[in-house]
């Protein structure tokens, strides 16, 4: 198990849009798409982030500014020291040859990494549906166009691509074509809708889940899912269709920082 904590400077910061930034760290984690790191900001806290990409020199994460921790991260400049540990968790599988990816909102970074990894392994056919509220919120449009055989877009307000959700577009595609596997990453409501469609067409799928994570290594219990006790930080965050069928809280409830159950 590789679990060294590494303390290192932020090597570069790129602004994707006003609330979204990509941070580069010059280190190697040997991470795979879907895995995450725990990032420490000294004197602030420690939080989980998906790995956007890794190449021979660097690791990248993309962060949305949503609260105290991410606010603090957005105040930091290149050269500021932080600490990361990982990679943790189960990655997306890479065996499939005909693949559909369905992404929503800010949860697309792992899919971009996945598309790159699938291409590198040699895939027959790769289709991506990228959904967001509006054109300004869409991420990595040109990257997906480059990496995929077909790259489709859905926006709630119709400002680019299909007007509607990525799940609507997914449904249209499945009327015409079939796939070995569908990879889904997005807000949980969107993933729930996508899972229902995937099941209707009888196609295996993998989803990228999020739960409150504090230790990242399967000891504190904060990310454990009901009722089968899936330890998401170790046995996820990517979960396949067979396991997901046992996770009844999917799309229904999650637990807060204290462990109390909240509805989604």
């Amino acid at each position, binding site marked *: 198990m590789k679990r060294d904590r590494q303390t290192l400077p932020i090597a570069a910061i790129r602004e994707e849009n006003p609330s979204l930034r990509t941070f580069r760290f010059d280190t190697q984690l040997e991470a795979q798409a879907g895995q995450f790191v725990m990032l420490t900001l000294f*004197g*602030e806290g420690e939080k989980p982030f998906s790995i956007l990409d890794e190449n021979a020199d660097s690791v990248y994460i993309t962060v949305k500014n949503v609260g105290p921790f991410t606010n603090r991260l957005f105040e930091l400049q290149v050269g500021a*020291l932080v600490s990361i540990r990982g990679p943790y968790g189960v990655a997306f599988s890479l065996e499939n040859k005909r693949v559909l990816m369905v992404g929503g909102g800010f949860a697309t970074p792992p899919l971009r990494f996945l598309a790159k990894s699938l291409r590198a392994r040699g895939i027959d056919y790769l289709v991506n549906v990228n959904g967001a509220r509006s054109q300004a919120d869409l991420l990595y449009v040109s990257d997906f166009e480059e990496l995929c055989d077909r790259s489709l877009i859905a926006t709630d307000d119709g400002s680019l691509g299909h007007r509607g959700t990525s799940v609507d577009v997914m449904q249209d595609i499945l009327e015409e074509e079939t796939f070995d596997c569908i990879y889904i990453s997005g807000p949980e409501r969107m993933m729930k809708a996508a899972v229902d469609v995937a099941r209707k067409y009888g196609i295996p799928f993998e989803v990228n889940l999020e739960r409150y994570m504090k*230790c990242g290594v399967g000891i*504190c*219990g904060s990310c454990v899912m009901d*009722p089968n*006790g899936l330890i998401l930080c170790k046995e996820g965050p990517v979960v396949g269709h067979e396991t997901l069928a046992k996770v009844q809280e999917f799309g229904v409830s999650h637990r807060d920082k*204290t462990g109390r*159950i909240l509805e989604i």
Partner: protein
Amino acid sequence: MQFLGKVIPSPLTLASGILGISFSSLQRVIRDGAGMVTTKSLSLEPRIGHEGPIIAEFEGGLVNSVGLTNPGIDDGLLEVEKFHNEFAGVSIVSVFGANSEEFVNLARAVNHSKGDFLELNLSCPNVEDEFKRPFALVPEKITEIVTAVKAVSNKPVLAKLSPNANDITLMAMLAEQAGADGLTMINTLGHGMVIDAIARRPVLRNNFGGISGPCIKPLALKLIRDAYKQVKIPILGTGGVSNGLDAVEMMMAGASAVAIGSAVYERGLDVFKITRMEMEAFMSEHGYEDYTDLIGILEEN
């Protein structure tokens, strides 16, 4: 075998604070081979606990400063009820109060639950700023809290003791005199610190925390042995057990059952199944028929 009158399939128990927030994880740990499970310590009100990092590893084990994150006694006991719903498994409900009155209220709440045992966490080192000196270090507090809880509780009561006490054997004897039905020992050691030299910072957000894992095993064995010689009530041993031989040693020192915490980090949840197999292999090789044959059989030089 039995522990405090309950039949358990194995002496190996989930220690408090490891995964034990929800019924799902408690059931999971039983399915994965534990003989009993302990809940996270529950307080009257929900607690968020400390910011991360909450755990830091070092060569000898872990230093943690979780800070008693828990959903509060009401929601916590709902989890205990769900745990016991059409499910066979023995539970220890761990509680943590700021004074004996709170402990009494917690014990009353647990009376109405299906929880099998009540464990008093008298010794959490992670919230001293809030709660001052842990009760497990103060002889009069042990007597006061255990006496008060025993007066109202209808569950067998375990007092969880701290290795930081000047004389933990005295604490064990006082707990027994006050009516405790069993002891859990030991909780985490000291306050320890893990330092990140590059950052010139402690790794833990809270700077320091309780030490657990292999490095505290020799201390746990000695303290359990000392207490075993002075009290008649059973001891749930804990501290640095990560394999079958460790568990055998702890039972020989005097533990009637053994709780595993930090080793879940090292070995995953399989630790319960594997440790049990390792214990059984040792026992059959050396002619022990039952787990209970091991309890306290150490011969001192």
